[in-house]
């Protein structure tokens, strides 16, 4: 049974002075129906903003004037003014939107509808559904290539990456990956697609040109059962050299050399680590830890956890605001 949730827009927005040069990390709290905003300079939560029900995916427009939030149990994508925290309007999203990507031209939002086995394409200006594409069961991971030409949806129960041509909005290929794919991302040069498989315990790297498997990355941590090492979210450093992979209930983030695909390090973080965001200056990585209800701050250069920041219940998504 779903509660009717009234969005109260009574925020103490003016109460917080803006620190120059400081950035923010916005974290969605799945079971608190709000967003915790972390100041990257002080490493403290400076705002808590109410959202619709069960917020998960979160992303900013490229000029950061808008923030989009998947309010999964409200069956809507909310469009918020990040300055005021006011929800400006909702976008039709299809049922149970979980994760999405915004096309590089800021026009279309590509949404995975977890309960409905479809990917919904929404025109954010006209606020209309442009297309719905049938994909596998429980779509979740969403990726868009830097040139905006390909979108990939991964489906958890079907264990596939579905490659969609953004011009025709049709599937052009389906590639199998290991069990329960969770997250997908193109490298910045557009040459590789990475897909994490939670139950399969691997990350598959595809060569985009041939859509063939180029590498498969596996993990091993002393003292952690192999089947509890479950890769979910991951993040590339902008220089294209290093990937950080969240390993779910293994409570570690793996550090991977993107040239050799070798795992170089494991960093202990909070419990059930989910998604990540980099600080605007790329020196810090913030991980959402679902079960422990906190965010771990990692020093990117030192590859060390610096601090845990208490947020809401079941933090899920993370996005950077400069």
């Amino acid at each position, binding site marked *: 049974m779903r509660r009717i949730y009234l969005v109260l827009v009574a925020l103490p927005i003016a109460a917080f002075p803006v620190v120059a040069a400081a950035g923010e990390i916005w974290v969605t709290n799945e079971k608190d129906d709000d967003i915790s905003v972390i100041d990257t300079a002080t490493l403290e939560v400076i705002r808590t903003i109410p959202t619709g029900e069960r917020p998960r995916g979160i992303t900013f427009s490229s000029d950061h004037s808008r923030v989009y939030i998947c309010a999964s149990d409200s069956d809507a994508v909310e469009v918020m003014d990040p300055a005021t925290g006011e929800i400006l309007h909702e976008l039709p999203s*299809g*049922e149970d939107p979980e994760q999405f990507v915004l096309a590089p031209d800021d026009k279309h939002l590509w949404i995975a509808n977890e309960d409905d086995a479809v990917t919904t394409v929404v025109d954010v200006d006209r606020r209309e559904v442009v297309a*719905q594409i049938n994909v*596998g069961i429980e779509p979740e991971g969403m990726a868009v290539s830097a040139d905006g030409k390909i979108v990939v949806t991964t489906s958890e129960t079907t*264990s596939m990456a*579905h490659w969609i041509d953004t011009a025709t909005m049709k*599937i052009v290929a389906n590639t*199998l990956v290991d*069990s329960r794919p969770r997250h997908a991302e193109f490298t910045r040069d557009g040459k590789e697609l990475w897909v994490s498989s939670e*139950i399969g315990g691997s990350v598959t790297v595809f060569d985009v040109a041939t859509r063939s498997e180029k590498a498969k990355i596996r993990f091993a941590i002393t003292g952690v059962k192999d089947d509890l090492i479950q890769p979910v979210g991951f993040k590339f450093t902008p220089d294209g050299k290093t990937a950080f992979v969240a390993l779910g209930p293994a409570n570690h983030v793996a550090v991977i050399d993107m040239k050799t695909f070798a795992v170089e390090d494991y960093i202990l973080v909070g419990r059930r680590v989910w998604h990540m965001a980099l600080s605007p200056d790329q020196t810090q990585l913030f991980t959402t830890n679902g079960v422990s209800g906190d965010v771990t701050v990692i020093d990117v250069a030192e590859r060390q956890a610096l601090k845990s920041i208490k947020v809401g219940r079941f933090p899920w998504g993370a996005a950077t605001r400069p």
Partner: protein
Amino acid sequence: MPKRRIRWKISACLLAALVGGFGPARAEVTVAMTYLRQEVQAPPVLSNLDPIPADLGIAGAKAALADTETTGGFLAHHYTLKVISVAPGGDLVAAAKAVLAASSVILVDAPAESILTVADLPEAAGALIFNVASGERRLRDADCRANLLHSIPEDAMRADALMQMLRARRWTRTAMIVGPRPEDEAYAATLRAAAAKFGVEILAFKAWTFNTDLRRTAGKEVSLFTQDLPDHDVLLVADEADDFARYVADNTWLARPVAGSDGLRGEGWAPVLEQWGAVQLQNRFESAAKREMRPRDYAAWTALRSVGEAVTRINSADPAKLRSHILSDAFGLDGFKGRPLTYRRWNGQLRQPMPVVNARALVELTPIDGYLHQENDMDTLGLDRAESACKAFGG
């Protein structure tokens, strides 16, 4: 807030025709499966609440078929599922022979003896059979069969899960009420073995002898009935027919939690599971079956999904190849319980985490951290390799 629903439902077959490329070329594969049920007359029970659904198990197989067909739609893999239900006392052997002539993957929902009858038919030699109904140990022990895998947990896995949890809580003094039916005696023996395995004491046993309508008198009768039990932490009840156990809780002489067949239970699946993506499976099941998913539904679901996962990976419907993939290191089924599910290579039992639940929530997912095992901590639940007399798997 109005709900926006945009649904364009297209069948898996049509979907296959609509999508463009399929990646690497794959041969068409068709997998013919049958759900074969021997209907059993359920004993009369006191309460009219919670009747046994007519499609128990079958609904789980159908939900798995829908999940599997979607993947198949992208890969030119076709799946069919026939349901054959034999009335109580009907000719199961004749039905099984007909089924084996038409399909090579069979989910059998029947008592242990009948499952063995089907597995031992000459026609079944090359088939892949799943036991989706019987938790009896002997099918995993001396009476195991090479062509028979078990997706339903052994009864001992349920009992071991509960005892692990009681031990972890240090609720180690128990007493037990045992129902009058052979199944109750059997589960009592299973609970007793599990208690011994995990160091839980059963201080007293009491046979359930009432012949009254407890809906009227439970408060008085059960209180007196339990008055002479030695003090205990938890009251165990063995009532596998779901007859009287529901009237024990909150009617006892001492204020003690009830566990076993009612109250706190070890189960393969329960409607209260929501973590690990389980809520998605529950939603899909409920929207199709119009009821909650029960453990027997989950057993049928995991059996059919095991086949689907294997066909997807090896691109074949050959039962021998499917069996060998399912029993290999390469196999891992996403069963919405937080870890990949695999099969025990020495007796064909699906290895899985076992939830311990009450009516409202998941209490523990076993194995609980700290119960160690030399190979796999999930093997702390149920018959382990060293104890099993099963030889059919080459062990």
